[in-house]
């Protein structure tokens, strides 16, 4: 217990104990989930499980095609989210503060969007992308629906990251006769990159975990997708299907869930490493 000398009164102690207990509770929940998944799922995960196609509605075989579909959906989602979201975040952080009312309205819309249940996004994606734009149940409509969901999250994170860049960098750029665009591209954006990466991770996390929005948009088809216009079954949809609709699918559901969790942990780890080592070093040393 640090600062022991300053923890003189009982209220301090109680607060300290309570917050410590809360931290342990959080860790415990995570550990329980991981333990449960490992216990039931570890035996099922193997190289052939990760590469083979599912058989018998997923009871047997692996998740090779599911992983490919998930990757493609994620790719479409990110390809739409990152450029669009970055531009929106730049607009909100760098240009719109002078138009406070519009910025407030934009921020409110994003907050409402990020609180929206995913099933609503699913229905919207189905109506708009699948039916109105004629994409059908496809990786395209699934990815774009996910982009709609991840966008508010990513925009707010990127906006916060840009706002956190000290104003003195912008004033310095101005004073050196650099155009605002150049200051933004060469100094402000690189400085905000760790935060923007965190936003991308949030977006990936949300996209990978999504089930409800994908059922109506990218569909159930477990086959290996041949094109982005094919339907593709995402990992989370596969888990849902195995657990709820397929008797005898529990073992593979656990193995798939374990794969998903490990994937998320890996992506998080890579992102943390990238922001702290790779990107940082590259920026400072060039």
């Amino acid at each position, binding site marked *: 217990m640090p600062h022991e000398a300053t923890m003189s009164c009982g209220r301090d102690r109680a607060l300290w104990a309570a917050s410590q207990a809360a931290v342990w509770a959080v860790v415990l929940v995570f550990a329980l989930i991981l333990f449960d998944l490992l216990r039931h799922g570890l035996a099922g995960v193997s190289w052939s499980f990760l590469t083979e196609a599912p058989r018998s509605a997923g009871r047997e075989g692996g998740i090779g095609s599911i992983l490919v579909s998930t990757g493609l959906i994620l790719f479409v989602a990110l390809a739409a989210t990152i450029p669009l979201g970055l531009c929106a975040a730049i607009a909100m952080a760098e240009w719109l503060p002078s138009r406070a009312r519009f910025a407030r309205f934009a921020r409110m819309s994003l907050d409402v969007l990020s609180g929206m249940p995913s099933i609503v996004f699913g229905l919207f994606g189905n109506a708009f992308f699948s039916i109105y734009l004629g994409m059908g149940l496809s990786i395209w409509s699934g990815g774009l629906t996910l982009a709609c969901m991840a966008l508010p999250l990513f925009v707010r994170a990127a906006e916060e990251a840009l706002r956190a860049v000290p104003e003195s960098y912008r004033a*310095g750029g101005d004073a050196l006769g650099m155009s605002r665009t*150049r200051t933004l591209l060469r100094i402000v954006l690189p400085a905000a990159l760790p935060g923007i990466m965190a936003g991308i991770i949030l977006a990936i996390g949300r996209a990978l975990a999504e089930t409800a929005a994908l059922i109506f948009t990218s569909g159930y088809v477990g086959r290996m997708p041949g094109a982005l216009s094919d339907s593709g079954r995402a990992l989370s949809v596969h888990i849902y299907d195995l657990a709820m609709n397929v008797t005898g699918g529990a073992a593979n559901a656990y193995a798939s869930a374990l794969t998903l969790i490990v994937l998320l942990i890996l992506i998080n780890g890579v992102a943390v490493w990238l922001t702290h080592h790779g990107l940082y070093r590259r920026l400072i040393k*060039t």
Partner: protein
Amino acid sequence: MTTPIITEQQDLTTCPADLAANAHLCLEHTAIFYGPQQALRETSLSIPRKRIFSIIGPSGCGKSSLLRAMNRLNDRIEACTVRGKVLLDGEDVYAAGTDMIHLRRRVGMIFQQPNPFPLSIEHNIDLPLREHGWRSRSKRRERIERVLREVGLWDEVKDRLRHSALRLSGGQQQRLCVARALALDPEVLLMDEPCSALDPLSSAVVEDLIVRLRDRLTVVVVTHNLGQARRISDHTAFFWSRDQMGCLVECNETERLFNAPARDLTAAYVNGQRG
């Protein structure tokens, strides 16, 4: 009889004629507003060429706002408006069609808090050079070495030019910022309390650096440190704040302003009785 109120009718706020003749920067009836609130009363001032000009006065008297008006750094602040003229070599920097990039190249600025970019030491100077069209890498390198020598930083950093500028000490960072500004060959260097965020030793080093810039370029330095203004500057303008509005009280050669101030308020301030 030391009621520090401006009573004399004689106008001391416009500079002596000899100053105006050699003026590099001229303020003509310059007034600054933040929204409806006026921050600086109409001010006229001549800043002589290749001399050090200091601006002193208590906090909130519009010194920094005035300094930022000289290279239009206030432009980013939507609510801020500047009336009157700011003449650089006779040309109003607020005229329509002013080339801002050119203006900022001619008029450099140093801030209170050293603000090197989160890049390497070398890149901090290289980036603005490239921005201003320096194509040749070898010429940029030469220039980088020259300005780092000028601010006395070369020997300290020549082996770690690729390290982050953020790892330098505060005083080194501020000298890097001066080097970065000098790299663009400005005619005027505006300094907004350049030493007040530094420890006494670093502060002395930066102060010596400012003195070395005399005769090379025009320096306008805002400072809270009266001793510093007295030590380094040729001319001093004293501002005061009344009704939350800054106004120029007296402007003169530094020696005369400190030793024989024309106004009671000036005398009270420089003697430490007011402010």
